[in-house]
């Protein structure tokens, strides 16, 4: 469910907060500019990856919620 392939420096699967923090950093650096074309592309790809990780976490959370809430009709 969660994209475990995205890893941080130490190779641990990225947790939601970690992914979100890094994503914010990536966006900030991209917007700051000043990096080479190659770096910007790499940054952007990393950003996409991180965004997907965060989305997976949120989708997972929402699914677990729906499972619980869905079970007992209100």
């Amino acid at each position, binding site marked *: 469910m969660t994209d475990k392939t995205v890893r941080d420096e130490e190779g641990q699967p990225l947790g939601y907060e970690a992914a979100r923090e890094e994503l914010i950093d990536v*966006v900030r650096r991209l917007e700051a500019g000043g990096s080479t074309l190659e770096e910007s*592309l790499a940054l952007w790809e990393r950003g996409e990856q991180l965004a997907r990780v965060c989305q997976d976490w949120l989708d997972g959370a929402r699914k677990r919620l729906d499972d619980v809430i869905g079970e007992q009709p209100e």
Partner: protein
Amino acid sequence: MPSLRESTPESPAPVRAVANAVAQWIDRLGAVWVEGQIAQVTRRPGVGTVFMTLRDTVADISVTLTCQRSLFDSLNPPLVEGASVVVHARPSFYANRGSFSLAARDIRMVGLGELLARLERRRQLLAAEGLFAAELKRDLPFLPGVVGLVTAPGSAAERDILDNARRRWPSVRFDVVHAAMQGPRCAAEVMDALDRLERRPEVDVVVVARGGGSVEDLLPFSDEALVRAVHAMRTPLVSAIGHEQDQPLLDLVADVRASTPTDAAKLVVPDMAEELRGVTWARDRLRQLVVQRVAREQELLDQLRARPAMADPRVLLDARWSEVAELRDRARRCLSQRIDRAADDVGHHRARARALSPLETLRRGYAVLQDADGHVVTSVSALATGAPVSVRVADGRVHATTTTIEPLDANGSQTAAAQTGHQEDGDD
């Protein structure tokens, strides 16, 4: 002392004289045994006299009763409000303030007073034994299996408890044991009932309930044997006897005291509807919080992804592309300028070359004479008649043989030689 009877408006008697006269007259009354009920007791520290109100047991008449603190304190059991007493007192008049009171020399409890006194003694005794100790109090079960109820058959108390309990928790189960709630048999019957309920393990709590009544009515609920029996009980007990202000000893030994039967029902049985509301509220609150949290995180993520740098990286590339394009254009511009200049330059040279090149001259009708060896002939002297020559005209070359040579002078007219030579040709 002048008799007060002769007092006249002209020679009135002073107040002190009147007060003292009254005091002396009252003193002559002497002591008397009075029966009444102690209504109010005012005992202030440091004040030697205790002030009480002695009320007639029937009529609504009362009088102030005073006694020495030592006497009051010596009374055992102590004098409590509401006690009916018999007092040996002397009417006395306190001249300074003109107040009348009975000065008690001896106070004895009687009837109810005696009763209450005995109760008080018993309370102190049992309390001393620790039967009422707070740490003995047990908590009531939250959801009792069976509720034991000891009450008078068909009593209002019974109805109150059953109705209220069922309204709060419809599936409550009762084991009602009826017993006399008044009179000599009361204590014994209540004890039997308690014993029966005690033997049923599924009974988790017992309530002893009775409506209001006089002190005498409630006396059995202070019976020592009953109190000891309750003390020995394993099952927690709720005492719901009489009204709020009544406090038989049963209240003190019970695990919980309920002021009214309805209150007892509330204590032993939870209100299911309320509990359910609580649970539902908690669950809804829980969900709301988590859903909100996820929504907030999602919103943040969406914002991040919407940022141009992420949403549309082309923006980045466009920036770079326009930069490159601009550089390219500049390059082109300066290149084309260079080319143009080069072109002009070449054009210029070509023109000059062309200008210098004989081709135009030839076009204009000139021709270039070359001798056999290809050298350009610039003077007739270089040739002799019959010498082969080639003539280069604009569009080609003519090969010929010199027939005659005609030297000319600079401005084009025949030179003498030419004229002479001309005749020589003629002679050969």
